[in-house]
């Protein structure tokens, strides 16, 4: 403990420095590819490889930060409460959109992977990558994928969706704030929700709701679809 504590504190401080540095650059440049989660992760990976520090040693501090993802997801109840009227009015359309998104997401990801020659355990690892990490890992476990690989792909997907989502959706003529938030939350889970919160409270609330609904739909549908088709 005496030896690991300074290392853990250093890991937290270095991660925060990388993230807020990346955020500063992102706000100055407004370049979407410089997504702070992406840039900070890349900077930390490069530093660990350069210094020869294994991930487990880094994560003794890192998991102190990721522990707060739990209460952060619970905290989405606040924008959900504040935007309740907007959300409740659209209840049925929201269910329909997310159900369709879940089916198409599983089919497209698993289909693309298998067309591009992936072995079955890879196909089963990519199928659930649109949903929040704990659900995605449980699905991969159940269907015969590799859960830690799925967890890594979930983060990659989150960053990708957050970067391309808002400009793509605007170009497609999506103007509704709920539609933008739902799309970000269902394609890019928590990372997309963090991005949606930058746009506003309605977007953030819709994204938070989408994480839950998309997770549920995908948990039920992935085993069915994977068993039938892949």
């Amino acid at each position, binding site marked *: 403990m005496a030896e690991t504590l300074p290392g853990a504190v250093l890991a937290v401080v270095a*991660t925060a420095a990388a*993230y807020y540095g990346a955020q500063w650059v992102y706000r100055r440049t407004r370049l979407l590819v410089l997504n*702070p989660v992406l840039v900070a992760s890349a900077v930390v*990976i490069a530093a660990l490889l350069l210094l020869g520090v294994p*991930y487990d040693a880094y*994560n003794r501090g*890192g998991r102190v930060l990721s522990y707060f*993802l*739990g*209460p952060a*997801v*619970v*905290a*989405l*109840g*606040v*924008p959900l*409460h*504040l935007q309740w009227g907007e959300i409740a009015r*659209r209840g049925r*359309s929201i269910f329909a959109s997310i159900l*369709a*998104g879940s089916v198409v*997401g599983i089919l*497209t*990801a698993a289909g*693309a992977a*298998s*067309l591009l*020659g*992936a*072995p079955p355990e*890879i196909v089963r690892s*990519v199928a659930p*990558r649109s949903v929040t990490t*704990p*659900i995605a890992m449980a699905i991969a476990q159940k269907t015969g994928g590799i859960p*830690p690989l799925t967890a*890594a*792909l979930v*983060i*990659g997907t*989150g960053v*990708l*969706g957050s970067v391309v*989502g808002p400009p*793509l*959706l605007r170009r*497609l003529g*999506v103007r*509704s704030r709920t539609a933008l938030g*739902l*799309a970000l939350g269902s*394609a890019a889970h*928590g990372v997309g929700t*963090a991005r949606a919160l930058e746009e506003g409270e309605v977007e953030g609330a819709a994204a938070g709701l989408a994480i*839950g609904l998309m*997770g*549920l739909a995908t948990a*039920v549908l992935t085993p069915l679809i994977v068993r039938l088709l892949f």
Partner: protein
Amino acid sequence: MKPRSLLVFLAGLAVLLAFLYAGEWVVRATGVPVPGSVVGMVLLTLALRLGIVPLALVRSAADLLLRHMGLLFVPPGVGLMLYGGLLRAQWLPIAGASVCGTLAVLLVVGSLQQRQEGDG
């Protein structure tokens, strides 16, 4: 931060954690296939709606966590380094599936929701 608002902040954080553990308990008891945090989010929304938890109690803690949510995703993002070998060996199907899947979900959910709402 004033002592009083620090106290409210800490109490708010404790409430969020209590809802997280309540959510995890519900998941263990019922076996629903969602994480405890998502159940906790739904329970907190209900508690706020019913006035069981006052908004002022949780607002500052929730705002802080949500404003810095991106930071919390960096350690799992760094975890990608563990799969360097596998990602290199299978990069094409993995990248293809991630890009196609992500675009498909964005397109389907965004445009379906926009269409159902019309201009309203």
